[in-house]
């Protein structure tokens, strides 16, 4: 990392802003039912917080919080949550992605089952979008060579 005095301002502001950004992404996801928002937007904002860590500190700092393997797991987990929520109604003779049959597993009436089914599905979308955005950013910025670039930085080679 380049050592110059501007770093202090950027890092302090980033450290202050990152929790607020992550909280705001949760707000956008949870409030998506009654205001503009939802999985895609929340996922992008959550990914933006990790991208801000990568920009203000370095990619190694972001990977201490969310390692590459965990990120890959999240990419699949989101799609799995979505597809599994769709599969559950099949067990009680419903249609694929027909959330009102979730009321037989949860203590809800069919309308509220659809309400919370949508929330579950949006959670899956949010996780996938977040993980894919982070991995896209990290791979495209470093051309897929995170580790060797970090090692060069430690040895003082600036690429």
């Amino acid at each position: 990392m380049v050592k110059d005095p501007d770093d202090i301002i950027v890092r302090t502001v980033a450290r202050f802003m990152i929790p607020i950004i992550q909280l705001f992404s949760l707000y956008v996801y949870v409030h998506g039912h009654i205001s503009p928002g939802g999985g895609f937007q929340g996922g992008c904002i959550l990914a933006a917080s990790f991208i801000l860590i990568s920009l203000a500190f370095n990619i190694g700092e972001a990977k201490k919080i969310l390692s590459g393997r965990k990120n890959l797991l999240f990419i699949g987990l989101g799609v799995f949550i979505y597809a599994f929520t769709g599969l559950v109604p099949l067990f009680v003779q419903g249609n694929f992605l027909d959330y009102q049959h979730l009321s037989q597993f949860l203590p809800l009436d069919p309308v509220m089952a659809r309400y919370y089914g949508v929330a579950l599905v949006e959670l899956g979308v949010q996780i996938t979008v977040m993980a894919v955005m982070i991995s896209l950013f990290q791979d495209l910025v470093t051309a897929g060579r995170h580790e060797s670039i970090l090692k060069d930085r430690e040895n003082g080679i600036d690429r």
Partner: protein
Amino acid sequence: MELIVSKFNYWAYIVMILVGLYGMMVKRNLMKKVIGMNIFQWSIILFFISIGAKKGATVPIIIKGTEHAVKAADYINPLPHVLMLTAIVVGVATTGIALALIILAYRRYRTIEEDRIIEALKKR
């Protein structure tokens, strides 16, 4: 004149789509081609969003207290918004893959100019 004033949204998207198409067809730099592709995508997105508009209507969120007598004319058309919400994210995905392919091309040929890549391909 009526054709232009009442249909200005279509004219705007046509100008954008032509800029994107020109960029994709004529520019020889792969990065500029990707930018052209993005402008093309966004012109389609703006076209769909402009279709959703209705005069005298508000955003498609049902106002609290009027749930029992919802009139469709009071809310703009939500369907283009939904389709374009997915299209935006798919656009990001295609842009990401395009950039990855450009990085691979640069690794192999050390250039992203189309002419030089074709020259290098002919030499092999």
